[in-house]
């Protein structure tokens, strides 16, 4: 697939990227391709190297190895001002001594565009992010959400070949975050900008991305579409990081757990079904009672549309989701585990 033609149309192609701080390898032989117009999230826990990767793409950090191509052009040797990317910083990094208009106009002024063109383009972009009424405000006088949009406008006005977003929503309150992430996604799709989004928030990644690259310890564990990532995780880490996972040692054989060295079974909470032992016909369903996992409800956590039930099975706890009717605490239940994910030494074994 890596023909010259395919290369040229790639938005961003990272190959074998390495970064070391001292003797610590923070980004370890990382490969990632982002197609034109696509939004790919780098998702991973804090400290896994997401920001470091993004900063190497933007040019703020020198890579210790590997190549970074934007629209087919290697940018590794270029300083940030010569790269065709634009970044939205986590804390927005607006210039406090300039008005919103001047912040957004700055990149265009640097390009020595005629004054009327600068004004037109800045006003157009401020319109896109709905900030025209604050064109003459200083950053300190507008809200966090508005600052975020000003920072986005400053990146968009450059019409970059690649848009880089580093945790762009982490400084917003929960409600605004949901709205802004929809706004950003809508704008990104409308303008068709190739985008890399860094986040540690799986909801953010799942709701905004075309594809998600899950990072762990400086490496990418899996790159998949959001749905696939959840239903078809390729490693135990991905399964555990994206969505909730009950991890049980051993493998499931006929409804019971059979211990086996190096094997681990993961079950999503919605795949944990609880059947009260005193329910008529409970024992008749499926296997014989002695072959079934049996447990007791120890906690019920209301989650709005559903309940999360914590069940003690033998000496471990499982999480289960119950839509509609919940079960009382103390209820003895049979536990049926559906759609198990089997891992050997952290890697998925069978396809589902």
């Amino acid at each position, binding site marked *: 697939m890596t023909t010259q033609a395919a290369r040229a149309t790639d938005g961003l192609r990272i190959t074998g990227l390495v970064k070391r701080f001292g003797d610590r390898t923070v980004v370890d032989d990382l490969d990632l391709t982002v197609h034109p117009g696509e939004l790919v999230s780098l998702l991973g826990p804090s400290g896994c190297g997401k920001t470091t990767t993004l900063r190497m793409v933007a040019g703020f950090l020198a890579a210790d190895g590997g190549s970074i191509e934007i629209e087919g052009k290697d940018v590794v040797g270029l300083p940030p001002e010569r790269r065709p990317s634009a*970044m939205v910083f986590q804390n927005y990094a607006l210039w406090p001594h300039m008005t919103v208009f001047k912040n957004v106009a*700055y990149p265009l002024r640097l*390009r020595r565009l005629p004054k009327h063109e600068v004004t037109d383009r800045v006003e157009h972009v401020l319109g896109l992010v709905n900030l025209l009424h604050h064109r003459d405000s200083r950053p*300190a*006088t507008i809200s966090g959400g508005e600052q975020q949009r000003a920072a986005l406008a400053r990146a968009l006005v450059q019409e970059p070949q690649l848009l880089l977003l580093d945790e762009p929503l982490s400084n917003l309150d929960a409600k605004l975050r949901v709205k802004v992430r929809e706004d950003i996604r809508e704008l990104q799709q409308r303008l068709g900008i190739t985008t890399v989004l860094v986040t540690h928030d799986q909801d953010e990644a799942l709701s905004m991305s075309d594809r998600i690259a899950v990072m762990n310890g400086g490496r990418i564990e899996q790159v998949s579409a959001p749905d696939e990532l959840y239903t078809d995780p390729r490693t135990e880490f991905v399964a555990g990081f994206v969505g909730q996972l009950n991890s049980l040692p051993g493998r499931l054989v006929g409804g019971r757990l059979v211990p086996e060295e190096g094997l681990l079974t993961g079950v999503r909470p919605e795949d944990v079904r609880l059947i009260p032992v005193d329910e008529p016909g409970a024992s008749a369903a499926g296997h014989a009672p002695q072959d079934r996992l049996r447990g007791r409800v120890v906690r019920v956590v209301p989650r709005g549309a559903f309940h999360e039930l914590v069940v003690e099975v033998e000496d471990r706890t499982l999480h289960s989701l119950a839509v509609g009717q919940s079960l009382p605490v103390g209820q003895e239940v049979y536990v049926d585990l559906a759609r198990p994910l089997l891992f050997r030494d952290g890697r998925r074994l069978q396809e589902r």
Partner: protein
Amino acid sequence: MALPPIVLILVFVGLPIVTALLYSLGHTGGLNSVTATIAQHQHVATSWWGTLDAYREVLTNARLQRDLALTVTVTVVSTVAVMLVAFGIALYQRLSDSRLAKALAVLAIVPMFIPVVIGSWAILLFYSGTGFVRTALAQIGVEGPVWAYTQTAIIIGSVWTSLPFAVLMISSGVQAVPDAVIEASRDAGASLARTVWSVILPMATVPVIIAATFTAIGVLGSFTVPYFTGPNAPTMLGVDINNYFSSFNQPQQSVVMAFVVFALASVIGAAYVWANFRTAAKAVR
């Protein structure tokens, strides 16, 4: 609660200023009578508010005019030099974490711990006819300059003594500019030089102005450096004030010169007040 400090300031700052002002206008009685009995060449008040004769004498004296010009020149040149060097060091320290940058910043602070008299003598010896500079240059067959007892030595000494405070002040301002706003500027397409001009300098304006006003006022009224390292004539007003007061026994002329320096300092002080006002205005938001 605020009363004791106010009284203290009125007695120890306000009262001397008022009596000195009255004396410069020729009011030789009252608190000024003791000074006035032994002073020479006094101008005595001719109307109820006094006389400007003493000011006229000082400001029309050709020698003092030259000294005033020298004072202003030294102040302007030294302040500009201090600002350039201090901003350069602060910037270097901000943008590089090399040892050299750190060493330079520490070195710039050292004069703060050396008394001005000792520093002045060191500068004098360094640039004297038989000093280090000429001796070292002579080794390679070059005739070095003699800067001891020249205006240049005063400027070098003024820069030397003013640099530590300016470096501390400006460094703290430049250091407070976050990485992200600098990177955002580069990301937007600005070179490093353009980033310094359009982002770092404007964001450090207030400390730069404060450092500049303190430096200028300090140099303007300096005595030790010009007294030790400068020429006998022309010299700076600080030295003249001392000469007129203790050698020539003309305290009234001294006081007049002091008010001239004070007037110049007030103009500079206005910049300082304006900078502080800007800070306060920002804090309110």
